[in-house]
């Protein structure tokens, strides 16, 4: 990579290019399981949680919820086992970061799971890996087997009183199982229908036991936090806004990726602070020859798009919200000037319609309805009221369902309809008088 770019900080990705880093023989001399050892021998579970709280680590699955706070919700003294579930159902289109972790450094993932399980006093970890990641499943299972043989997984880990099993549970093709309660249902062998909350999983999760669910990347940060302390982590990246006591900033490092219509799609690791423009133009290599970038979704398909003129925003949780989008999974999708934005809406709406679990009326019926309207506009059969119809569909779908899939279905297409209204009107002949929003 060319110099002068925003610097990479390789914490999670330090072993990505090391040959055979997925084996214990290579990973352990490079530091794997040292944090586990430190935590088990020198720290109480509460101290681990405290360090994670201090680190201001926020969930890397898309929602950005503070991890330490989530852990503190876990119901204690219930007489039931506590479970840790690692959400590796990375089905957000545009996201592929967890796959790198699982395939290239599975021992980091397992160590992160174990240290976190120790912190919440879980007796078992289920790593729910999407079925479309057979290599990730193989690598993780291999790593777990090696770790078990080395006394790092199972009973009396490292000779301490801490016992914890780690199991890989494969999904089978359902985006909704990335939603944490949909995932829990799936883990119980059922259809991935999200549950109504409350109760929240920390109180009643999988098998009706207290359960904490975290993303792969989130938990992979925990070994570093244990090794270097929460405060060191909190010093990296974007600090909390001092003017806002509820702000948590975007601390530590973050895997960020670019896919779509750029020269150099890929995955890198940065302390948050890099702008979306540097990510797309610098690391992503900018537009394909002879083209211009038209729109970028900053974090997986379910975030609103930003125009080329809006890319000078820092890749941070709060910074992207301020410009009407979101960090999501931190993996951007780039659309250039050859992309037909109406067809892009058809594509996106089809995805959400296909992945809607079918439970709630607005999502089940609304996503396909949106797709059908986009389809007819794309086919030149758009009707004068269609944009107003779409706006009212967005309103009727967003915030009206059990889980957030419906909201995610609305955000990207609504932003496209609003930002590329002209493209829609151009397909309607005769062009109707613009009305509504």
């Amino acid at each position, binding site marked *: 990579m060319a110099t002068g770019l925003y610097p990479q900080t390789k914490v999670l990705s330090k072993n990505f290019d090391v040959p055979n880093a997925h084996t214990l023989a290579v990973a352990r001399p490079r530091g794997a399981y040292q944090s586990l050892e430190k935590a088990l021998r020198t720290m109480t579970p509460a101290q681990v949680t405290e360090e994670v709280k201090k680190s201001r680590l926020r969930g890397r699955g898309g929602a950005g919820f503070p991890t330490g706070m989530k852990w503190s919700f876990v119901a204690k003294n219930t007489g039931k086992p506590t479970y840790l579930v690692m959400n590796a159902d990375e089905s957000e289109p545009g996201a592929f970061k967890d796959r790198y972790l699982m395939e290239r450094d599975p021992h980091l993932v397992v160590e992160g799971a174990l240290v976190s399980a120790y912190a919440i006093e879980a007796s078992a970890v289920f790593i729910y890996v999407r079925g479309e990641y057979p290599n990730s499943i193989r690598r993780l299972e291999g790593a777990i087997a090696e770790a078990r043989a080395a006394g790092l997984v199972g009973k009396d880990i490292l000779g301490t009183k801490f016992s914890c099993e780690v199991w890989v549970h494969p999904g089978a093709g*359902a985006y909704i199982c990335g939603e944490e309660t949909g995932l829990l249902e799936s883990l119980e062998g059922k*259809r991935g*229908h999200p549950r*109504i909350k409350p109760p929240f999983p920390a109180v009643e999760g999988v098998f009706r036991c207290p359960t904490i669910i975290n993303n792969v990347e989130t938990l992979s940060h925990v070994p570093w936090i244990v090794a270097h302390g929460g405060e060191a982590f909190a010093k990296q990246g974007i600090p909390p806004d001092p003017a806002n006591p509820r702000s948590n900033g975007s601390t530590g490092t973050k895997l960020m990726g670019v896919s779509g219509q750029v020269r150099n799609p890929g995955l890198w690791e940065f302390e948050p602070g890099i702008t979306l423009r540097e990510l797309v133009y610098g690391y992503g290599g900018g537009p394909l020859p002879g083209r211009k970038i038209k729109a970028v979704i900053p974090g997986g398909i379910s975030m609103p798009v930003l125009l080329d003129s809006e890319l000078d925003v820092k890749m941070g949780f709060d910074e992207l919200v301020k410009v009407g989008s979101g960090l999501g999974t931190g993996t951007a999708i780039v659309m250039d000037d050859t992309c037909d934005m109406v067809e892009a809406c058809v594509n996106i709406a089809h995805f959400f*319609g*296909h*992945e*809607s*679990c*079918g*439970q*709630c*009326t*607005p999502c*089940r*019926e*609304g*996503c*396909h*309805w949106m797709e*059908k*309207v986009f389809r*007819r506009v794309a086919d030149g059969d758009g009707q004068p*009221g269609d944009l107003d*119809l779409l706006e*009212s569909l967005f*309103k*009727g779908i967003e*915030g*009206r*369902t*059990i889980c957030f899939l419906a909201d995610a279905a609305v955000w990207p297409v609504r932003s496209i309809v609003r930002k590329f209204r002209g493209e829609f009107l151009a397909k309607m002949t005769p062009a109707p008088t613009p009305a509504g929003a």
Partner: protein
Amino acid sequence: MPKITIDGRVLEFAPGQTIIQVAQANGIEIPHYCYHPGLSVAGNCRICMVEVEKTPKPQIACYVQATDGMVVHTKSAQATEARAGVMEMLLVNHPLDCPICDQAGECKLQDYAFDFGHPTTRTPVEKTHLPKNVPFGAKIVYDGERCIKCTRCVRFTDEITQTHELSMGARGDKEMVIMTSKGEFTTPYAMNIIDLCPVGALTSKDFRFESRVWFMDFTESVCTGCARGCNVTVGARGGRVLRMTPRENQDVNRWWMCDAGRLGYGHANAPTRLTTPRVRTSARAGEFAEVGWEDAIDAAVEALRDAARGGVLADAGATLEELFLLKAVAGRGDLKYASRVGQDEDGFLIVNEKGANQRGAEALGFARAAAPAPAALLFVERGDAVPKALRDGADPVVAFVTDGADVPPTARVVFPLPTWAERDGLLANVDGIVQPIRRCRAAGPRDLRAPLEVLEEIRLGLDAAATPWTHADVVAAVRGAVAPAGLAVPEVEFAPAAPRTVAAPASRTR
């Protein structure tokens, strides 16, 4: 007690109650499809969304618990708009086949569309197609396109019967209810899912295409298929019972009834039913002449006066009042009842004792007929309740029977007996709960007279000094008579006896 404000009304509630429960308890209607008080909360239909102050998004009233100081609006702009949106979504792929749908007229989709649907359609032309006319066992038909995926039926077989014959299949807008590949329900309560279905997705094969519901006459009554006494609504038209559906009674049957009871109305529509009184015309058994009611009553009085014996053999489906009058007329002899006893008691609703008023008969001093014995009066609504051997052995003087096949050949006078659907009266169920059955105006053959009236006239004929009794008098007397047995007869208003004529089917051109 904590208080919640719904639509400006300050209401007290018990902690744990949901918004919809508080609303319903106070007569505030919040539309709902997937919510049913007897089932777990699914929260998926989203039609019950209401506005809760200090909450940005509309909330589902079926799941959100009331909290002290909560302020809810069910008719605000936000709530109305949310509901209308869901309503429109539900109709996106719903077929507009109301003209041939059995549910039409009692369909919550129609009702709510009428209340707050969009006046015009904005839906795309092509609807999603799903399997239709799918048999769910021998008695139920499923239509995947009409289905709104509320999962009430699935939850019923999972939670109430725990027989797990239904699940949801596929996903997204292709989602639908699927049934076990065994093809039949093992639960005897399966047809409750038809009533649970808020739309016309689950229909009864028995009732399909029989009648538009608005042409039918509905009467609140009690099922007499067994001694449970499930509360029902009897739907009839043109002299025929067309349907029975359960009615909520938390002390008896909650919201449910069994399939056998639901379908056990066949004898009311039998073509072999007796419709006119008969008097035997010769010494030879089985030779009868049809006569008018007054002539038959006179003949009965004469025959009973002639007969040297008394005694009653009654179907345990006879009401308390009927049994009381049978006893008054022929109480000199043995009082016996007969009923069918099954072997299918299941700890839920079905009980082995099939006599709907067996407890009442016992309370009035009737004993189970163990062996054939003579009786002056025979009272048989269901032929299988009183076995032929007992009927023959009774060799009655006067008989009340429903079906021509059950006419005792040696009786002197035979009165056609209206079925339970056509009579007013009280039954004591297996737990001693006394409940009314009610005359359904549109059921049964024309011009049948209530056995209670006939028996009263016979009683007066036999004893010129007797004081005439009204139905209310009989009920009062029964109340005293059964009290020692622990039966409490409630205050019940019955419609005044009227000349029996069958209500003509409502005009088709209306």
